């Protein structure tokens, strides 16, 4: 029983982490029908940017004061992720806006490899995993034998606050409406005076900011980062986006928590243990693609000429 509860807690923490990435996947898909496989790398560079900021930009007085260091590294990580995403959109995806869909997809894979290799080559000693600095107190809560690490709690709380804020933004602001309008009918949106380029950049910015925050919190929670965390978690997040119904924000959050729970519970209870937990995630992906390709909240017809 305690094990089950413990795994549920772990799963929820992982789900919160994945939600940060999944939202960016699903928003970009919703607006330009691009599976941005480089999105996981946007998450990863956020993590490294936070590490770099901590190591080389913060004076030791701030380094040791977590409530100053944490917001600074989160902002730095998010800002760098946004920068990378904006450059990526401007120079890699925008020129391919009217190309066949396969072209930007392959470009996305190329950018993914490029970003990984860039960090490997240019981050000092980038080939090896890096210890993430302690920018959050180590403590943990224990009740009924279940331990909830403080960093996990931080991660989930931040995920809930930020996804809520995103929903609010997309549903009630002028630019959020413009995003939804562009996703539904870009040509008509343009006739309403909406500049699609601006809306698309905004979408990348929002997705990247969330991914960047997620990247930093990953480091805070798991203590170690390496250059493949983006790819791994990106693939999980992609699965979560498909499960929830790609293009749907609600679906992204629900999907992320489902995948988080599936991974931890399967690692505990299914044959093969944690060595095989990836397998179950992709089994789910296959089942979804076969039996309910539109996911939980996706629309049945998203096909556009």
């Amino acid at each position, binding site marked *: 029983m305690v094990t089950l509860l413990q795994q549920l807690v772990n799963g929820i923490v992982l789900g919160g982490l994945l939600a940060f990435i999944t939202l960016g996947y699903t928003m970009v898909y919703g607006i330009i029908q691009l599976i941005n496989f480089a999105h996981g790398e946007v998450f990863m560079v956020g993590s490294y940017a936070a590490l770099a900021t901590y190591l080389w930009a913060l004076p030791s007085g701030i380094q040791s004061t977590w409530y100053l260091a944490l917001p600074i590294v989160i902002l730095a990580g998010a800002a760098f992720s946004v920068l990378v995403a904006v450059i990526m959109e401007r120079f890699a995806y925008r020129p391919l806006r009217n190309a066949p869909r396969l072209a930007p997809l392959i470009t996305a894979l190329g950018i993914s490899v490029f970003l990984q290799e860039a960090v490997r080559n240019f981050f000092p000693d980038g080939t090896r995993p890096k210890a993430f600095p302690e920018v959050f107190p180590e403590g943990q809560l224990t009740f009924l034998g279940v331990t909830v690490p403080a960093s996990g709690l931080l991660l989930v709380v931040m995920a809930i606050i930020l996804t809520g*804020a995103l929903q*609010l*933004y997309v549903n*009630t*602001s*002028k*630019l*959020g*409406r*413009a995003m*939804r*309008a562009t996703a*539904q*009918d870009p*040509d*008509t*949106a*343009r*006739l*309403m*005076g*909406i*500049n*699609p380029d601006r809306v698309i950049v*905004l979408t990348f910015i929002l997705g990247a900011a969330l991914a960047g925050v997620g990247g930093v919190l990953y480091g805070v929670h798991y203590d170690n980062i390496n250059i493949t965390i983006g790819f791994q978690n990106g693939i999980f997040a992609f699965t979560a986006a498909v499960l929830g119904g790609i293009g749907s924000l609600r679906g992204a959050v629900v999907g992320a928590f489902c995948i988080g729970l599936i991974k931890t519970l399967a690692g505990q209870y299914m044959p093969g243990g944690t060595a095989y937990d990836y397998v179950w995630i992709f089994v789910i992906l296959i089942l979804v693609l076969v039996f309910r390709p539109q996911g939980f909240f996706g*629309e049945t017809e998203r096909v556009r000429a």
Partner: protein
Amino acid sequence: MSSASDRSAAPLLEASGVSMVFGGLTALNNVSLTVGREEVLGLIGPNGAGKTTFFNCLTGQYVPTSGRISLDGTTLPSDPAKVAAAGVARTFQNIRLFPNMSVLENVLVGRHVRMRQGAIASIFHGPGFRKGERLARERSRELLDFVGLSQVEGELSRNLPYGDQRRLEIARALATEPSVLLLDEPTAGMNPQETEDTRQLIFAIRDSGVSVIVIEHDTKFIFGLCDHVVVLVQGEVLVAGTPDVVRDDPRVIEAYLGKPPEDVAGTATEGEEGR
């Protein structure tokens, strides 16, 4: 050449020598027309005459091969988003609402171009943001009231009946505060009562100070609505003038009204009363 009117005041919208060539097909050939302030202009012609192509040129969706279109003396840009800001809005022959947005939200999207709201302000929901949103909602509700859709503002637009969807498109277009409104077959598929309601609505729009250009196949509707009528045939202006002049012109009767019976039946709605 054929100018629609000889008004003393400068025309609001002026198209001069507009041609549009797609490959070897000349969709519009040297089309010139003017629209005055608070004027309803009808654009009629057989299928494939280039009426919708002309609308696409006006809204910047197509860049004319040659010719110039100006609004209030300023040449219109070739970007639809900028044309909307300049004051031209349209509806579509086949309705193009945002299907998964509510009725009110569709109109709010139309307010986009008239709202000043920065990306930062909308993240933090400051007082300026709240005020702007409130005003946009008020204005949008006024427009829904104007077209008679206040009761259904929360419905998803795709769930509205057909006639209501057409009216919602008009409300959304009006939300951009156009000086010229382009209506592409606003009464297609409507019953006589709805058609009459639409006619009254267009008069009300004109009286509010907006000029209207209407594409229609229903010539009876057009003649009872418009101050001036332009007949397009095969991409060229055949006749332009007041409804009386156009109605009695033998070329129009020959090219458009005097078609074989099956064509007339095919274009007019339900073969309304004989003409």
